[in-house]
């Protein structure tokens, strides 16, 4: 677990004048790390991006001290990860943003129009699956039973009056399935990248703000100077302007 690596990592963090900061991320978040890098450079930091595919390996790398921080996963997932791996990754406040997830359809204009036996594509990874199921519940399309594990799964579906068929796809693939399904549930940013209008959604997930995303570090680094400096950068106007201009509402900054 992380404990065995702790001393080594502590040494690393304690080094005075440490300038190189490695931040893990995935492709969609790469620009954010870029702005962080630009913002921190004048403060004497060399922020480096370590790009991962989407899965839990960035978090593993962080817990093992192979990177200094990550910006990828939302807070609830990080908490689950901590629980499962018996470690302590933390997201210092203020949180940076949340990703808007919504339901998109090219075929149907309203929720009611979703027909019997509809196909709905969702990202297949458990965290997004969990969120999607909750969204579908909130839309009134199905009801869920009791959550048994960390995440809701299709096994937890209780009533499914429209007999909706959930298609589990790779998160990168979800939006690309839109022509072949009745609706997709996916991040607005990916919708924008795919060339669709991210704001013409069928249903907007109300719980989006419950999934904050921001810099995640090991607990023992919470007080490190570089973390404090990083937080300052993420709150700077320059950062926020670039952010809003780029994501245009698909990622939403918290207004703390």
């Amino acid at each position: 677990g992380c404990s065995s690596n702790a001393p080594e990592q502590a040494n690393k963090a304690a080094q005075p004048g440490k300038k190189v900061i490695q931040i893990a991320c995935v492709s969609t978040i790469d620009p954010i790390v870029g702005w962080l890098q630009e913002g921190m450079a004048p403060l004497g930091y060399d922020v480096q991006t370590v790009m991962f595919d989407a899965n839990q390996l960035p978090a593993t790398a962080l817990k093992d001290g192979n990177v200094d921080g990550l910006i990828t996963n939302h807070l609830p997932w990080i908490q689950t990860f901590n629980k499962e791996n018996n470690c302590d990754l933390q997201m210092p406040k203020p949180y940076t943003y949340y990703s808007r997830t919504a339901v998109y359809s090219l075929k149907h204009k309203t929720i009611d129009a979703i027909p019997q036996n509809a196909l709905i594509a969702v990202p297949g990874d458990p965290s997004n699956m969990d969120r999607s199921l909750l969204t579908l519940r909130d839309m009134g399309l199905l009801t869920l039973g009791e959550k048994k594990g960390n995440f809701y799964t299709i096994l937890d579906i209780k009533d499914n009056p429209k007999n909706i068929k959930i298609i589990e796809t790779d998160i990168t693939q979800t939006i690309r399935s839109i022509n072949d399904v009745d609706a997709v549930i996916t991040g607005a940013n990916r919708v924008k990248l795919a060339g669709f209008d991210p704001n013409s959604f069928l249903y907007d997930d109300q719980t989006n703000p419950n999934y904050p995303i921001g810099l995640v570090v090991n607990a023992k680094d919470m007080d490190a100077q570089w973390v404090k400096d990083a937080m300052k950068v993420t709150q700077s106007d320059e950062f926020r302007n670039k952010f809003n201009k780029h994501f245009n509402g698909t990622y939403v900054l918290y207004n703390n």
Partner: protein
Amino acid sequence: MFGNEFWVELLKYFDKIIGPAIFSTIRMVTATMIIASILGFGLAILLTLYGPQGLRPREKIYKVLDFIVNSIRSFPALILIVAISPITRMVVGTTIGEKAAILPLTLAATPFIARLIEDSFKEVDKQLIEAARSFGASDMQIIFRVMVKEAIPSLISITTLTAITYLAASTMAGAVGAGGLGAVALNYGYQSFNNTILYTSVFILFIMVQIIQGIGTWLYKKIV
């Protein structure tokens, strides 16, 4: 060691998730292997006919085929899926689900098999080909009645190897909502921090690998 609850949960997963995934995997790998073997074999025949040391060398045709084979082989799996999605939609009517997964899997497996078969045909003793020519066998007869026959052990090995490779590769079918054991292992196992599912799926994959290898070895022994 494992409580009652464990078994109930596993059973439920088995019934709803792992069970269907097994069949889905079997269907996809079987379909991929059948189609890719046929196409790969056909492609291998063309490569063998027109190759520089082939039965009927035609540099231009060979170069085109070679180019196609190499092109397909240079795509990372997921990108191949995307790249051919217009074709996928044309052929199977959708870009998601098992059927849509079979096309890119087949497309990836075909040049792989074709190259392996071409390589094994190249190893057939030239004297036997000459002997067949001496009694007037046509190029096709030389391929089917001499090269195929002589290369049968190789062909069995190739099929075994490819089946195992694409059993593992069928994981990528999960990307287009086709399910399968690989996707279950990833999503319900690894990413859900559920080791039971993870190990169960991998174990079943392992059993499948063993079965494929077992059949391959048995056939090989029987024939050689």
